[in-house]
């Protein structure tokens, strides 16, 4: 079933790719989009079914495995646990919404939809992969697909941004590859099986070799996440990508980094993670404050949202640092921090994904991302205002919405482990609140400029797509139990809570 969730969208992408592009047999864009949305919804349905079958009794469930290259200990292995299931579900939701979301195809609907579907399968596959080789395959392939999405359908200096994204993140994937090989060589018998490596703990003895492997993983995941100071690929890539691709980039691709930290680095090298937990927490706190401050200075809407991603990923890192710290007797707090960090991954995916889709809609109507070019849209466009406000408040952590659930747990957990860092991080919350309120004020309040008299509201498709994300944001915010229960089934045993 999980395998179908990965390969049905990929197969759909291949089918799309061989369809006739022109001539009498060529399907219309509307039909193509509808077909793509249906194909993209299949994994969502399968993952919802998985959610109901998931028992949360610890370990990986619903594992499917087939030998792939047994000579090297490589197998196709997929499965879920309380960490990967919510992320895979979030990925599936965001892809359905993003594929349904209107975008300027530039006359090339088929390759666009095929790439999005392909990327959906690859992204879900990455979260479900239980083999380092398979994980890396999905990791690298996602870069290539995203490169083409930015380069071909982006705006501004799209090709340059796409190239920067590709080289930068590929530069991160090579230390990751070397680290994977490093830990692979230490296993006995040699295997790429994630569960088996976690059980073996081949580098538990430490030493220079283990430290090199640790930093290989760390650099690889840090670039993808991204954390300060290796975040500089992110703003141009986000700004120049088409709206739905930015949503996927922020919502899904960044999570690959944070997911890797937990699934691979913390699980396989817990000793070294504990040793470096404080510096990692400091890096997280710096990302929080720095991301918020830089976002505050932005006049470009999309760039502003991009920098809040740096800020939010800082929360995740802080939570992970607290969760993996070498303290005893604080397991309950550490489990809360880890749960909070995981909820933040899900919440950020939904919220920031929605914000990037909205900024795409604003660009399509107004032709610019400059915040100061707008104003007074409140009276003119009700749905746009309402949904933007909802997502902005969710992003700044308003109680009752998803972001709050995540952040309050991260703070509660961190406060017990690193009180000073938690206090610094609180500063970030204040800054984010300020910058979002200021942005909302400048775009939607005040006097409506003459040229926006005819500013069109969101179309029904756009409202429904964003509304779907909004439902989940509220649902997680008001009754988070269904999500927290699943995540806790992973987080509790992970930190050794009795």
């Amino acid at each position, binding site marked *: 079933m999980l395998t179908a969730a990965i390969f049905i969208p990929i197969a759909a992408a291949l089918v799309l790719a061989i369809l006739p592009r022109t001539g009498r047999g060529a399907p219309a864009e509307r039909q193509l989009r509808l077909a793509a949305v249906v194909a993209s919804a299949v994994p969502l349905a399968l993952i919802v079914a998985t959610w109901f079958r998931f028992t949360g009794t610890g370990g990986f469930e619903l594992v499917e495995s087939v*030998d*792939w*290259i*047994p*000579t*090297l200990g490589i197998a196709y292995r997929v499965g879920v646990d309380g960490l990967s299931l919510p992320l895979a579900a979030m990925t599936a939701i965001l892809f359905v919404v993003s594929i349904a979301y209107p975008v300027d195809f530039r006359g090339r609907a088929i390759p666009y939809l095929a790439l999005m579907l392909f990327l959906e399968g690859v992204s879900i596959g990455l979260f479900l992969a239980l083999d380092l*080789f398979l994980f*890396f*395959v999905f990791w*690298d*392939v996602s870069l*290539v697909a995203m*490169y*083409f999405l930015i*380069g*071909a359908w982006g705006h501004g200096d799209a*090709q340059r941004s*796409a*190239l920067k994204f*590709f*080289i930068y993140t*590929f*530069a991160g994937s*090579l*230390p990751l*590859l*070397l680290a994977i*090989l*490093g830990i*692979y*060589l230490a296993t006995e018998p040699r295997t790429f099986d994630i569960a088996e490596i976690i059980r073996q703990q081949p580098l538990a003895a430490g030493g220079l070799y283990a430290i*090199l492997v640790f930093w290989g993983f760390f650099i690889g995941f840090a670039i993808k996440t991204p954390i300060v100071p290796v975040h500089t690929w992110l703003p141009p890539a986000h700004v120049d990508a088409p709206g739905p691709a930015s949503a996927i980039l922020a919502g899904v691709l960044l999570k690959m980094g944070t997911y890797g930290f937990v699934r691979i680095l913390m699980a396989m090298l817990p000793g070294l993670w504990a040793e470096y937990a404080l510096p990692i927490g400091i890096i997280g706190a710096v990302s929080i404050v720095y991301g918020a401050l830089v976002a505050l200075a932005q006049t470009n809407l999309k760039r502003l949202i991009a920098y809040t991603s740096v800020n939010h990923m800082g929360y995740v890192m802080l939570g992970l640092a607290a969760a993996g710290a070498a303290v005893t007797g604080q397991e309950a707090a550490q489990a809360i921090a880890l749960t909070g960090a995981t909820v933040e991954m899900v919440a950020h995916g939904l919220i920031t994904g929605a914000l990037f889709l909205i900024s795409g809609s604003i660009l399509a109507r107004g032709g610019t991302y400059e915040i100061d070019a707008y104003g007074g849209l409140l009276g003119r466009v009700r749905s746009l205002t309402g949904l933007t406000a909802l997502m902005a408040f969710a992003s700044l952590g308003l109680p009752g919405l998803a972001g709050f659930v995540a952040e309050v747990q991260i703070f509660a957990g961190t406060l017990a482990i690193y009180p000073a860092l938690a206090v610094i991080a609180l500063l970030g919350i204040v800054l984010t609140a300020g910058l979002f309120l200021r942005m909302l004020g400048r775009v939607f309040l005040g006097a409506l400029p003459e040229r926006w008299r005819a500013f069109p509201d969101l179309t029904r498709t756009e409202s429904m797509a964003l509304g779907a994300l909004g439902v989940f944001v509220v649902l997680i915010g008001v009754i988070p139990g269904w999500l927290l229960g699943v995540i806790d089934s992973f987080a509790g045993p992970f930190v050794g809570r009795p």
Partner: protein
Amino acid sequence: MTDNGGMLAMVGDVLPEIALVLGGVIVLIYALFAGPKRQVGAAVLALVTTAVATALTLAMLDREQGLTFFDTYARDATAAWARLIILGATAVTIALSVPWFRRDPRHGEYYTILLYSALGAALLAGATDLKEFLVAMLLSSATGFIMSAYHRRSSPAAEAAMKYYLIGALANSAMLMGVAILFGLAGGTTLAALSAGLPATGGIAAVIAVGLVIVGLAFKLGAVPAHAWVPDVAQGAPAPVAAFVTAVPKVGAFVFLARFVLALPPGSLGWEVLIAVIAAATMTLGNLACLWQDDFRRLLGWSAVSQAGYGLMAIVALGQSDLAIPALLFFLIAYVPGNLAAFGAVVELRGRTAITDYAGLARARPGLAGSILLSFLSFIGVPPLSGFVAKLLLFLVAIQVGYTWLAVVAAINTVVSIFYYVRVLAPIYFGELPGPVAVLGRSAGWATFVSAGALVVVGVLAEPFMAAFAGAQLVIK
């Protein structure tokens, strides 16, 4: 072993090579008597020859691995797989050559030269004797020179062939001297004699001799310091020939280099360090030269240089890692089709050179654009293409034998290489088409697609190859 039965058994060990010799003769005779319009029949005969030789090689794959012809020739799985790669690449080259040379009324003999060049590479892969090695090197080199200059009225081709010849002459004489010294030191020319006879402590004469032989092989590999011909041949030689000589002789040279270093007394002559330095220099130099290259074919040439550098990582690990031979063979089975797919697209596009001429290709010829894309992604090492598995194995063996620095250099070079590969791919996919795109003919297109498809198939279905390569030996004594 001198009785008739033994002789016959030994002949049975070289049936694929004999098939190539006979096929070459038949092609030549046919070309002499066929009219200008029937010259293409020579290509068909050559193709049949490669098919026969391939079938004979396949039949030999599961045999016991060992030496034959009085320890001068290996009949191990490594040589057999190298031969299969060589024959496959030769068949692809024949398909690329047919439309390219169609207008040439007397080109039938070209296929004889091509078959003998393949034979030279195959002999190189099997040679376990320094004299055998010399013969194979000279056969492979001489045929390469002729094919490069086949368009004798074209000045770029003449210039490329001249450069190829001069560097080759220099490298081959260095190699000859090296072989002479080794003969003197070891008292024999087989690798077994070398292994037993070379003083274990090395000594200056042995170091120089080994260095000279490696320089000779570097010429075939397109590796530093004898690499300078590669970009010129890639740019100036007939495009199918460029595809061939930047890939096929490498296969033989890599395998012989592997046998040669295994015959040296372990750890005394410092050959691991020498090869590692050559590898690092080759991949870095090839990469840097690619960076601002505006000529597509020169870029492929320099990229072929840098790829040779990656392949040398497997040689460094020989004897210390059980995965060194699989890494080498997997590198070859990934690199050769990648090279053929990229050059094949050039052939099919009538040899166009400037990068700007490729703008918008994805809209006009999605298949050819896709072949270039797959080839470049495989060179970068993007999964699930075969180039990824190859690079993974190369990194793995380098780390395994303690040459982590070499793996790091290779990783940095890989990142750098993205820049120039994407610099070509971006206009192909995002650029506007300047005008109609003329192509050569069906066979070249199919050969290109088959090569590109091999990158996917071998990458995804890597296990049968890995299992076969894991059992392959490099027999020297």
